[in-house]
């Protein structure tokens, strides 16, 4: 493996996390400027390789790259050499030879970014690998939480609690968030039917497992709804949208009476299924902030990797 890559939350130290958050605050300030651009990565090339459909993550990375002045190149499997039968590793080697500096990769198989990083000397950023991880989403979620709670130091997160509701089994967002938040000592509840709950997850991550949204869940500082991933599995995990909504959906009558809570969702939302529109668009909702913060955090990640894991902004 060549340079600094971000493949899994497991690879990040608390120092890395704090540094990325610190830089994210600076990038957030850049995003507030009239001219949202810093010259740091001028002359660098970011390749966006999305082997799985994505809108917000791809555009978020593309904008983040442009705002730090990197050039971007998009790669899609349709019409590519992959379709002509080239192996994944050879494709990566080719891209590497073309002079790409950063590879942002999303793939529907777990561990692909890790293999790619192993076999190239490009910095690889995992933009979601199957059901495994989505580390930049977890970092932007953390940044969103800290901004909402007006925290600067990740050590202040340890007194807070997060409940993650929905399909845990298929969720890379849940896995990355749980790993990241547990590193910081955040108390976590996961709320799911047994059909989408990995057995033994409570012991592996030292978190609490619940089947339904109860008082303790509603008392958490952050309540995160997960997307019911209809495209990823047949209806054998949940029978219907209405049943999911009845038992696991975030509904106005439960949520809107709460004070000082933050509602989150990684998007894209199935409105009326895991979250009701009135909740998604309420004062408690940080969902649109998550999207905006995603750009800042990804700028920070590109910056941090470019600096070889050292802090300091020009």
């Amino acid at each position, binding site marked *: 493996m060549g340079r600094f890559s971000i493949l899994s939350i497991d690879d990040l130290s608390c120092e890395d996390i704090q540094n990325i958050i610190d830089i994210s605050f600076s990038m957030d300030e850049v995003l507030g400027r009239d001219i949202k651009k810093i010259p740091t990565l001028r002359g660098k090339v970011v390749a966006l390789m999305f082997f799985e459909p994505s809108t917000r993550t791809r555009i978020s990375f593309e904008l983040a790259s442009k705002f730090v002045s990197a050039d971007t190149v998009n790669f899609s499997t349709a019409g590519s050499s992959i379709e002509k039968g080239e192996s994944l590793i050879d494709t990566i080697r080719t891209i590497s030879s073309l002079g790409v500096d950063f590879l942002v990769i999303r793939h529907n198989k777990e561990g692909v970014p890790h293999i790619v990083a192993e076999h190239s000397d490009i910095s690889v950023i995992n933009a979601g690998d199957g059901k495994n991880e989505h580390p930049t989403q977890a970092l932007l979620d953390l940044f969103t939480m800290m901004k909402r709670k007006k925290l600067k130091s990740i050590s202040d997160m340890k007194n807070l609690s997060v409940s993650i509701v929905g399909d845990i089994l298929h969720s890379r967002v849940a896995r990355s968030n749980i790993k990241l938040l547990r590193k910081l000592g955040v108390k976590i509840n996961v709320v799911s*039917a*047994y*059909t989408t709950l990995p057995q033994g997850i409570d012991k592996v991550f030292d978190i609490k497992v619940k089947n339904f949204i109860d008082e303790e869940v509603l008392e958490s500082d952050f309540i995160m709804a997960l997307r019911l991933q209809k495209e990823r599995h047949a209806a*054998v995990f*949940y*029978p219907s949208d209405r*049943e999911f909504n009845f*038992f696991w959906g975030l509904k106005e009558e439960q949520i809107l009476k709460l004070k000082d809570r933050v509602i989150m969702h990684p998007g894209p939302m199935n409105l009326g299924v895991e979250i009701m529109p009135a909740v998604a668009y309420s004062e408690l909702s940080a969902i649109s902030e998550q999207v905006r913060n995603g750009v800042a955090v990804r700028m920070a990640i590109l910056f941090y990797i470019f600096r070889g894991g050292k802090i300091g902004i020009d």
Partner: protein
Amino acid sequence: MYKSFLVIMQGFTSVEPESLLIKNAHIVDAEGERDGDILIEEGLIKEVGKGLNGRKVSKVLSAKSLVVIPGIIDIHFHIREGGAPYEEDFSSGSKAAAHGGITSALIMPNTNPPIDSPEIVSAIRERASTKSCIRIFITGAATRGREGKVITEYGLMKKEGIVAVSDDGNTIKSTFTMRKCLEYAKTFDLVVIEHAEDNELSGDADEGILTIKYGLKPYPKEAEEIIVGRDVTIFKITGGKLHFAHISSADSLEIIKFSKEKIKNLIDDNNNNRITCDVTTHHLLISTDIVDIKNTNFKVNPPIRSEENRQRLLEFLSDGLIDTISSDHAPHPDFKKFTDFSSAPAGISSADIFFQLCYKLVVDGIISLRKLTELISYNPARILGLKAGLIKEGFPGDILIFSPDEVIEVQENTLFSKGKNCCYIEMKLKGKVEATIVNGKVVYSAESIE
């Protein structure tokens, strides 16, 4: 979370709670035997003891020289409400049940249409609440259309009144779907009732003497054992509450025995993980030795097994491995049964004489009466999580009063069931039901006790 949950746990019946005093009863239930009076007020047993007075009750029954046991809770019962006029409905089915001493019945979802949505559960509940003279508990289909593919809305169906899920009549064929059914049912604390039949192996008659002599399509008991073995293996991953319906093979029980031992470490304080099973009266009382293939009323699924197998079932019954005895009351109109053995629909109408069939096990010296009441009242209540099945303060006023020595002769015209497909016609059985009481009300009585 479930606003009507307490109501669901009392079952659905048209019988309003009443008050009643039963005098001079010889009481037998799972907790033992004693003599005394039973005072029922507003449908609940208020007091059990000597010399109770019933100033407040309008009705007093004398149970002198009779035996009083808890009403039967039958965990496997077919009512085809909403079907054609000749099909069993709540009115005829519940009368047959009361005649046979049954005060609560868990009905199966393999109706047409199947009970596979909250809307249908609600309709069934409403009909049971206006037409049934016994308590009805509802099983929802485990998968949509009982097709074994998509799980049904267990949560919303539970809100409407189900206590269990099952694709009865079918095995949940996909191992993956079975896993998800167990997991989803565990989420809502529902029992999964499995009809264990590998339908690629099953046929019309027990593989053995009948298939050798008459060439009927064999239904080896292994067709059941394969699914039982598969399910207890899946259960090791999921836990939950798994109940095997109408087990016919003694070797299936060997597998269940082995698994019950294995899962002991899975059992938690809340009793959230457990495997249970029922065996029907016909598998306990009849063997292929007496099956007449010209009489399609002997055709049942799973089929009647060999005498050697039956003897082993009886051993397991006295050993306590069988959790409960069911009727698997499956009424069919005569014209459907009036055909050859392999074309006839499977099922025996037995609700009307269910108590006598069970009591035969006591008469034959297989089990004690105390043990019988445990098997047909106390255990099924525990399987379904009901506070019922004992004659005790605070329990429902559901009672069966019978004369132990009086003999009845089974005749078609004595059956309240619309299904006359009873293979016990002309049989003489001991233990006449004198009165069946639901919610403190006498819902069936022989003339002699009035």
